[in-house]
């Protein structure tokens, strides 16, 4: 295994570590979503209002064309 290959593997590991907190956040959201849908408990006023406000902000941003920077298509990096 040459040094370039090792470097690529190390970069891949660094990328995975860097991504972990974000992936965990999405996984937690999925878990909460499933729990809410399948559990017998009532979705409270507070939960409803929080969801409506959050989704309302997403909707307003989309209608205003407020695209996050990481959703933009950018030129390929120069090696």
């Amino acid at each position: 295994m040459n040094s370039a290959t090792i470097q690529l593997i190390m970069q891949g590991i660094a990328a995975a570590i860097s991504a972990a907190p974000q992936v965990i956040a999405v996984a937690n959201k999925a878990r909460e979503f499933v729990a809410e849908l399948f559990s017998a408990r009532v979705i409270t006023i507070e939960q409803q209002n929080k969801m409506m406000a959050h989704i309302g902000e997403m909707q307003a941003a989309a209608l205003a064309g407020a695209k996050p920077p990481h959703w933009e298509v950018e030129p390929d990096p120069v090696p």
Partner: protein
Amino acid sequence: MKNILSILTVALLLTGCAHRLEPGGAYYPPGQQADFALYAADAAYDLAYSTLDTVFKVERDNRAALFAISPNIKHALDDLRLRAWGVNVRWAHARQAYLANPVPSNLTALQEVLAHAQQLAVTAQAVIPNGGNP
């Protein structure tokens, strides 16, 4: 996480008629019927959007390393970025229409856009593990 969005789509269908909303909330206003279908659609869209957002952010934050592993990762996600933003704008318009006029046809339109977003999210989350081949 693989295929979790597909499972959630089934969950959405199975529970779409349930009424477990506390009266008085945004989805069950006083004097009106509960709108669990909208709540479920909103929660599912939030999850699909979050998945796309996370994949796009992870790739951008680690672009140099991932591009060195395979340029196809960025290229595949760039294609999805364009499509996902178009779907996001369509979703916003569909939701706006449903809120203004909450009839079944508008709910169906909203759910169709949601299904499209979920498909894109499933595709996006497979891009990095598969080296750019969704």
